[in-house]
């Protein structure tokens, strides 16, 4: 199993352990390897099977580009990890309640996902205790 798919399985485990936590997961699949020649298959999508997830296929890296721009704009530097050919991948970005896409950078971003899974779980729990007004 590739590291990316291990990351997907790690996130599924986190979701299984945080049933009561109000969290939404957006899985953006993007072609990074020579074998990524077509849409993710049903078995791949099933790796994140929790109903709090939504899944996207981003062939042209639109969303990864937007995340990179957020980090550059609000942090003043490039993301510290997880770039390949100029595209972000195998990275998790966490946003607290209340914020809108493009108006802030993520409160936490790091990767590879399978390796940072314990920290990711802590960040999800921590941010979920914030009130919307704390994060706006």
């Amino acid at each position, binding site marked *: 199993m590739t590291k990316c798919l291990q990351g997907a399985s790690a996130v599924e485990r986190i979701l299984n352990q945080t049933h009561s936590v109000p969290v939404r997961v957006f899985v953006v699949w993007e072609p990074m390897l020579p074998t990524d020649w077509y849409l993710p298959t049903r078995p791949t999508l*099933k790796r994140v099977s929790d109903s709090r997830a939504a899944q996207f296929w981003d062939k042209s890296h*639109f969303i990864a580009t937007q995340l990179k721009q957020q980090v550059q704009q609000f942090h003043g530097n490039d993301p510290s990890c997880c770039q390949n050919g100029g595209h972000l991948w195998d990275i998790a970005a966490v946003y607290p309640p209340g914020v809108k896409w493009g108006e802030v950078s993520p409160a936490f971003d790091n990767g590879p996902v399978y390796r940072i899974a314990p920290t990711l779980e802590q960040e999800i729990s921590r941010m979920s205790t914030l009130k919307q007004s704390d994060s706006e």
Partner: protein
Amino acid sequence: MRQRRTLWLVIVIVAIGFYLWGSGSTPRGQPPRVSLNETNVAQFQQTFNAASSATRVVLFLSPT
């Protein structure tokens, strides 16, 4: 006999293709997978913002 075999082969290939990539192939309870392009890329932002009462995690992964 040969035609029948070919027909079955086509049916099996189509069935496998539908299983792997058929529409709405996301797990139960999730919205259908969205293939983003220049015309619908804003759909990601809309979906993200619509869930603003929750913590949101965006994962970037490759499928293989």
